[in-house]
């Protein structure tokens, strides 16, 4: 997997108690394991199988992913802002490669 930096969009500032949308996009081939090469060999499955989102160490969203999700997976979800703090987003693929991205959330 290319260790490309995931793209994450969160509001510049949020209020406590507000429900905000978090948009994420990461580059990944998401090889289904169903595809064959020209000489008939099955291309082994390699997808991002798990995504987790934590805020101040508390997991508030998790995705268990199957090959039915498109390449370069886009994922948008929500969080109710409990206060100031830091996000931690983690993607893990079948090859065990882990992408970890931290991001602070400004309150205002």
């Amino acid at each position, binding site marked *: 997997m290319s260790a490309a930096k995931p793209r994450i969009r969160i509001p510049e500032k949020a209020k406590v108690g507000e429900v905000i949308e978090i948009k994420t996009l990461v580059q990944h081939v998401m090889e289904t394991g169903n595809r064959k090469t020209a000489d008939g060999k099955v291309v082994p499955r390699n997808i991002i199988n798990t995504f987790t989102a934590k*805020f101040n160490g*508390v997991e508030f*969203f998790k995705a268990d992913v*199957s090959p*039915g999700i498109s390449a370069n997976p*886009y994922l948008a979800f929500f969080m*109710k802002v409990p206060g100031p703090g830091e996000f931690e987003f983690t993607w893990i693929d079948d090859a065990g490669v882990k992408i970890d991205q931290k991001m602070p959330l400004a309150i205002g």
Partner: protein
Amino acid sequence: MTQRLEIEVVGRRTFLIGAGASLAMAAFLADLPALAQEPVRSIDEALKKVLGDTKPTESGITLEIPEIAENGNTVPFTLAVDSPMTDASHVKAVHVFASGNPQVGVASYNFTPASGKASVSSRMRLARTQDVVVVAELSDGKFLLGKRNVKVTIGGCGG
């Protein structure tokens, strides 16, 4: 003497077969998590796994997905479940199935009251024209189900 040697040979061979078998067993055991993830091929089986014997209510889920998807490789969707998302009443998980894909499971999303809103947007692969089925698991043990038919012009899934 010869006799005894032969017994020894057989003994050794039996041992080797035994060792081979236990190695295979170990490999099999190591594969167990992979077996547990053995893809589900039918929507009925997939729904049974999630629902058990519970009957879902067919309401409360909004699924936005194109009616006609020209490219089955990337079909955008947004789902939302009506829920106050409080400790007492929230959506625990939402499972998305593509009934006509080689593997019907698309994704499962887990929420907590801290999610604020049981809603997700992503993009899925659709192999052919089919129903996309969404099941929501609520904190009170009840289930909701939503369904949309999507016509696919060019299939995805590398099929």
